[in-house]
């Protein structure tokens, strides 16, 4: 009989579990029902009692590692915490969210308890065996895998399951003691990249622009065409920057970019100053999950195939009606000048707000 451990962790505030953690709880409940398996939830948090109420109604045994050392993500402490939870629960299947915090340590924990790990799991189900699907070659090849070795760790990509939303209830939590190694790493905190909105190099114009919004309904993808010469023979990078930032402000969209647009600053070409490699989607960037995606001035496989794999509803604005990358990949392609369309769109979105 399989035994399932779901590992979860608190968010930056320490006051609640992350959404991805709650999604993993849902996956654990589903899998436990399919396998008729026992379910344990292991919590890593500075104060587990403060966050355990959210999963008290899951019908699972609750284990926790608590203390100030577990407030911030850190390899040595998180690995020790998860190892202790695994040893206490003795599971055959371990589910955990594919968060930065657990992705940093899960393989190490699997190694320490003699287990195996697969990550970026897109689905998990139980038939004759437990099967999981994941992507290879950056979302170009999809595989269904299984393992007979145990314990088997599966890191679930966020956005696939609904977040567990049981009624908060008083929780009975078993605290697990952890033997911590000597701490050699001090976490200073979270920093947002400084991005210059106007590209004038003036330090006074540096602001923190939160252009990456994982929870946004819409992903806006900017391609290199924004910085190329326009019909008047000139580049209009500053205008492009204003249009894009205006759209992000009006729509609350998340901003993605093609690799070529991010890279071209190193080649001495005009750049959109608020873009960093963090915005990049595709082969060497992210493959975010959003309900809708609007690509503009993009041409190539990266934005349309790899970076858009998990975008449900896709539209594009392009000057090229024969672009082979949009055909079969986007749902609607508007053949138009993106500068003109976005200016109109921003006007309409702002007008709708007022």
């Amino acid at each position: 009989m399989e035994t399932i451990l779901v590992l979860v962790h608190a968010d930056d505030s320490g006051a609640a579990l992350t959404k991805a953690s709650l999604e993993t709880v849902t996956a654990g409940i589903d899998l436990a029902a399919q396998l008729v398996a026992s379910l344990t939830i292991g919590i890593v948090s500075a104060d587990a009692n403060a966050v355990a109420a959210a999963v008290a109604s899951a019908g699972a045994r609750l284990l926790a590692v608590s203390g100030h050392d577990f407030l911030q993500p850190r390899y040595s402490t998180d690995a020790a915490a998860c190892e202790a939870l695994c040893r206490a629960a003795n599971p055959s299947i371990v589910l955990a969210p594919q968060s930065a915090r657990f992705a940093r340590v899960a393989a190490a924990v699997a190694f320490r308890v003699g287990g195996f790990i697969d990550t970026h799991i897109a689905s998990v189900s139980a038939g004759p065996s437990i099967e999981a699907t994941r992507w290879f070659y950056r979302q170009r090849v999809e595989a269904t895998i299984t393992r007979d070795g145990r314990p088997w760790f599966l890191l679930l990509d966020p956005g696939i399951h609904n977040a567990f939303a049981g009624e908060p209830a008083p929780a009975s939590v078993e605290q697990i003691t952890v033997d911590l190694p000597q701490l050699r790493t001090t976490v200073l905190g979270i920093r947002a990249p400084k991005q210059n909105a106007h590209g004038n190099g003036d330090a006074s114009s540096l602001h923190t622009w939160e252009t990456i919004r994982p929870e946004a309904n819409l992903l806006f993808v900017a391609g290199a065409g924004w910085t190329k010469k326009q019909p008047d023979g000139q580049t209009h990078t500053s205008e492009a920057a204003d249009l894009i930032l205006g759209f992000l402000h009006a729509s609350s969209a998340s901003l993605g970019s093609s690799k070529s647009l991010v890279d071209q600053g190193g080649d001495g070409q005009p750049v959109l100053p608020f873009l960093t490699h963090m915005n990049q989607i595709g082969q060497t960037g992210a493959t975010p999950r959003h309900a809708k995606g609007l690509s503009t001035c993009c041409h190539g496989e990266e934005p349309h195939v790899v970076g858009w794999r998990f975008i449900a509803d896709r539209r594009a604005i392009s000057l090229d009606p024969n672009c082979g990358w949009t055909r079969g990949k986007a749902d609607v392609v508007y053949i138009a000048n993106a500068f003109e369309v976005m200016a109109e769109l921003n006007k309409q979105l702002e007008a709708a707000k007022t």
Partner: protein
Amino acid sequence: MSIAVQIVVCAGIVPDPLQVLEPTTNSNGPGLKNEMILPAVLDPWAASALYEAANLAAKNPGTPQDPSKVWLVSLCPKSKLQQVMMTVAQKVSFQLVPIDGPIGGFPDAHATAAALAEAIAALAGLDRNRLLLFGGWESANRSAGVTLQLVGEHLGITDQFQGVDQIDLRGDGSFEVLERVEAGKHQASICVGPPAVLGWATGNLPEPRNNPQVGMANMRNIMPALQKARSATLATGSLKYISVARPRQQRTTKIVKDLTPAQIASELAAWIGAK
């Protein structure tokens, strides 16, 4: 006085991103059709790690008695690696440690990590207490973000950082690291010093220009190393593939050519606002 760094970079090779990939099944399990003849490149994020390693070593050259060193450990077919090295060797200086093994993203990461750890542990001249183990935080073939972490555990390294975009080495040997976390932010940490594992994201460096002199110097050790490369057979372990296929989803694309910008904007505004 300059600190001498000892950096081992783990890097595989992957098909050129512009290639169309067709999965197939061979005697060893799943693979890619014509994989051995597809043009290959150094794994992009691992390449970032290599350039960052070379930059760190250049900034901290050490002393003539104790110079900084960069090793590049790669597990893949040595014939393919030789092709890739023709380009990579011209970028930065390193000492190649090839392991002749299978290509592709389908072998089990656990077996790959064990083979890499064994090769690193056997490196002559490596002081493991000073080791900075670099690599890509995820590969472009398996994309698991597991191998480097497992190598670190094999080697007993208890400070690891993933999604690294920056390292600042300080005079006392400690270093500050920026790691990518959710929502486009970085987590900043300070580690007292090596040994440590750093799985690199893009970093901050542009791809170095080709330098034929660096290439010639590198090739003096690369060719003998390739000739002496030991073979590694990776056990399949407990991993079994039930199916491997390209995604079949093909959308019916509607091409809209005859609307004015204002009309398109109206359509998009309604679409954005719709649930």
